[in-house]
């Protein structure tokens, strides 16, 4: 590397929570840093930067991805969903609502990674069993909660989704 020269950067375009965003990043910029510091969306957290804790999980084209293990340039053209994109305006996403009801968070640092992960799992499997709920969160670390209330939150989130769709069907029927 020639020291005196500024590092080469690359233009990228991403869709973040449905909004097209652009950034000019060096090749080595992690997606987590790009989201947090270039796009200043700090909801995505970094707990280890080596792919183990899951705090940085975002959805890339709908699939959970550890944003600390991906270069921003490789996300070129992708649809990214971060924790900021889960709620529908004032209405919390069922997973967020469930975490609140079940005391599924304490310091909240690990929480964004759990929320994005669980939302993707529930999209695939709206009625998880307890075992499946455990499985869903088994790749994320939390140091505060002991996980019992997080598992309860997964199950409650599925319930809230059902309750909300029942209400929606009911209203549509009237």
């Amino acid at each position, binding site marked *: 590397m020639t020291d005196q*020269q*500024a590092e080469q950067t690359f233009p990228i375009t991403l869709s973040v929570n449905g909004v097209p965003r652009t950034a000019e990043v060096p090749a080595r910029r992690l997606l987590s840093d790009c989201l*947090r510091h270039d796009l200043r969306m700090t909801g995505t*957290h970094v707990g*280890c930067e080596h792919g183990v804790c899951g705090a940085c999980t975002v959805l890339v084209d709908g699939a959970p991805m550890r944003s600390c293990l991906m270069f921003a340039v490789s996300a070129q053209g992708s649809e990214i969903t971060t924790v900021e994109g889960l709620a529908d305006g004032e209405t919390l996403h069922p997973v967020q609502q469930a975490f*609140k009801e079940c005391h599924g968070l304490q310091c909240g640092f690990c929480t*964004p990674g759990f929320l994005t992960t669980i939302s993707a799992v529930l999209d695939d499997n709206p009625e998880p069993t307890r075992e499946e709920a455990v499985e869903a969160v*088994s790749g994320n670390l939390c140091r505060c*909660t*002991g996980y019992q209330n997080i598992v309860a939150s997964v199950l409650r989130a599925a319930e809230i989704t059902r309750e909300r769709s029942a209400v929606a069907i009911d209203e549509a029927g009237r």
Partner: protein
Amino acid sequence: MTTKQFGAPVQRTEDVRLLKGNGRYLDDLGQDALAAAFVRSPHAHARIVDIDVTDALEVEGLVAIYTHEDLPGRVGEPLPLLIPHPAIVAGRTGYALAKDRVNHVGEPIVMVVASDRYVAEDVCGRITVTYEVLPPVVGVETARDAKHLVHEDVAGNVAGHLVQEVGDAPAAVDSAPHTLELDLKVERSACIPMEGRGVYARWDADDESLRIYTSTQTTTGVRAAVATKLDLPLNRVECIAPDVGGGFGVKIMHPWPEEVLVPWAARLLDREIKWTEDRREHFVSSAHERGQVQKVRVGFDDEGRVLGLDVKIWHDNGAYVPYGLIVPIITSTQLLGPYKPGAYKVEFWSLYTNTVIVTPYRGAGRPQGVYAMERTMDAIADYLGKDRVAVREANFIQPDEMPYDHHMIFQDGRPLIYDSGDFPGSMDKLKALVGWQDFEDYREQARAEGRRVGIGVACYVEGTGVGPYEGGHVVVESTGKVVVSTGLTSQGQGHETVFAQIVADELGVPLEDIKVTTGDTRKMGYSVGTFASRAAVMSGNAIGIAARNVRTKALRIAGEALEVDPGDLEIVDGIVRVKGSPTSSMPLGTVAVLSNPLRYAFDTASQAATQFVVGDPDKPPVAEDDEPGLEDRDFYSPAQSTYANGMHAVIVETDPETAEIKILRYCVVHDCGNIINPMIVEGQIHGGVAQGVGGALYERMEYDENGQLLNASFMDFLMPYVTEVPDRIEIDHLETPSPLNPLGIKGAGEAGVIPSAAVFASAIEDAEGFTITSMPISPSELYALRQRFAAGEIPALRGRSATASTATTPTPVTEATTR
């Protein structure tokens, strides 16, 4: 009526912000700040021969490089010894940047400031430090041997030495009908919050003031330390803890080198600077805890009553003792738990090693003390062939003996006097909860199925709510909204919610109208910090007192305005009204307006408070002993700690082939006095138990003999995932209110973790039929113990026939020989 909030499992007011990704943690701030990074020692013990930065100077984006030579005045002096206990024999603290020598891997040597973190690390990579490597001291045994010294001038590697004695314990042991001797060991673990440390500082050159944001458990502590280091008046420094992603003790330590250096450089360069710790840095340059070696001699009678207890503790304090001897002091005093030995002597040596410093981690020395005591109780029961619970019960302090004075001095320099608790009552609850009496049947049943199970029990008492004080500030604004602040910080304990619950009850306002701020010196400059399960006790009571004063004032002002006796008024849903005649009323916001006599009206509401409207023209608008505003600031400062307690039981199954340890049930009986929010208390217990499971079965700091930490990543340090913790924690509460504070509460934050090593050792020992003396224990270690047991190298429990496949002749644990 407004429903009572105290005691209700109300959902947290902080959650929506955090759930939506709108939390503000340290690294979320200062987006335009320069980044700091550090060159840290790769050696555990070395002399710094040379630092060569030539190769680094050309990196684009470099702003500054600092070594110890560059640090002026106090910035270059050793970091403070925060708690200068008289038992410190040789107190040594590090420098913000190492001077001449390094004493552990990870010690900062060079600070780099650059345009961003990537560049700052590039620069670090190009700085060459030459070392002369010295022999490292790693582990308690090596430190005790003192063949090599960590600090050349500290003989025997002894940082501190303390003896506390009640009665003549050695004589009581010697003359007792039975004696046993136990050699015990606990390894290191650490807090490991999901968010590491971090500091962001900005200097305002026009105002000559400094603002520091830091991921800390004490903003007032950091403020005072930095102001002193930088020679700034205290009121020119503001310190704020933003959202903090977990602390568990490590963030009560302060000032960290980075907390001094980042503000110092920000002022020097007149640029905003931020440093965010990465995970490896957290492992090698923050703090650890737990590592101890213990020797217990106990003498007891036929009932298992302890007549004499003589304990020696060797405590590994790492390279420096900035936090003093708090951890071993707590171990040595809280070891006593709910018991009353006839005589007690405890002696500890706190030893330097070339490893990361040791400062409190949730539980703060108690887990080790409880481990020593509970291993002893189990050993006595086994020796006498008695039920383990019965031996404990024979030693319990009884409810009618409260307050119980141990005649010792606790960590706060105050007498160790238990204020409340019903230990037999708690044990009855635990026995019922776990089904203690029926366990033998279950064991038989499991054995018939070829399964091996064991049950363990452990008790603890926890001094919580240590002083000196905390404050609360409560303001009712003219909108009727209430703004509350307290100086201690939050790391996920739900303080915004529980403090609001207290205020809601006092002031009769809905929770959503109360806004609580913690850990911001701009709002409350007097505070100590969040540790020792003290937040609810200290700030809860301070805020409660302040809120009550505000209530009194509100009723007085409203009484004058409504021309009724304040005693006839109540506040419901933010309205002050006459009891039984609710039409005669006024909103609390109006009372706030009236409380502040005005010259200038700024809106319609405030017109009601101008001098033409309010007040007796013959009296001063603000009475002599009064202040304007519907607000109060008050403090709570107890004479001593309040003692919470609890008892845990665990049922484990150990795999006969693989020695895997599975948790079948985990039961907790807990007494933290009056409970403000049961949902939050249970959450604290869940989290504590998970850390306890980690500490008992998985987590350890794997230092090699060179002082390299081999598992300094989440890949290698085994922190529990959901799959490692019990599915359910069965909890029963006993609420014996503390008589020491108005709200009757005791701390709850550390409870879950305290008895873990003890309770798992007890259960695994029970399953295996031989003694467990070292924790944590992994499947491979258990497997190795089984082989040694089979080879006759370790004795079987004697109290009952061993459940292990190879039963050997029962022998005492270790019979003390008279010397």
